């Protein structure tokens, strides 16, 4: 499947229909929130028990997991790919660069839903939690995203 042919709406609809506990994080989440940032990939944070569910849901899009579920849980992440690239975080918790432990279950409990059209929802972390995920790595692009998220949080609340 060529990248330009990717059925993005169908992809998110399939994830929602599957019931997989999956949060869109990374720059695509920022795009949905209204920030036009450049990004190539999709980043999901998935409950570690829902790997098989997600993989089955996105199989019709020719997205194939790079490792099996056992190995994905051992590594804490895996990739779904064809011409698209979906980074899937499956760790139960991740530490920020300044030592805060961020737990999937907490983010899932506080999640927000965004309707991307009349029928399809995407789950994202609350703004303050999305900001936490931007402290998983100390990259310049994360810093730039943090600063923009701070403006959003100031305007909309966390």
């Amino acid at each position, binding site marked *: 499947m060529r990248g330009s042919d990717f059925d993005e709406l169908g992809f998110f609809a399939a994830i929602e229909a599957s019931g997989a506990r999956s949060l869109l994080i990374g720059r*695509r989440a920022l*795009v949905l929130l209204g920030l036009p940032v450049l990004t*190539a990939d999709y980043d999901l944070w998935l409950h570690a028990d829902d790997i098989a569910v997600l993989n089955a849901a996105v199989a019709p899009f020719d997205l194939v997991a790079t490792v099996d579920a056992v190995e994905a849980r051992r590594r804490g992440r895996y990739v779904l790919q064809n011409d698209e690239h979906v980074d899937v975080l499956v760790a139960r918790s991740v530490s920020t660069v300044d030592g805060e432990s961020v737990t999937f279950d907490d983010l899932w409990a506080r999640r927000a839903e*965004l309707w991307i059209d009349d029928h399809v929802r995407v789950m994202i972390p609350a703004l303050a939690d999305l900001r936490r995920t931007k402290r998983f790595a*100390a990259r310049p692009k*994360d810093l730039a995203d*943090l600063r923009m998220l701070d403006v*959003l949080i*100031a305007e909309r609340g966390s």
Partner: protein
Amino acid sequence: MTERLRPAGLEERARLKAMYDVPMDVAEFVRCAAAPLTAEEIAETRELITWFTQRYPTGVERLAYARRAWERWSRSGP
């Protein structure tokens, strides 16, 4: 007269991407992340959000924009 910007070449884009993706010194990152927003940052970000959300009111339109923007960027040659 405004100088026309030259599109980045493949090597230049790889260098820029690496710069943007390579982790910074953690203490520096934390210090910068905690610094108060400047009035200029706030104004620029608000302007960006207003433009983007008015031009692309729905999520699916924003996602489609992001895909087009990436394709344009990745295809732009020297």
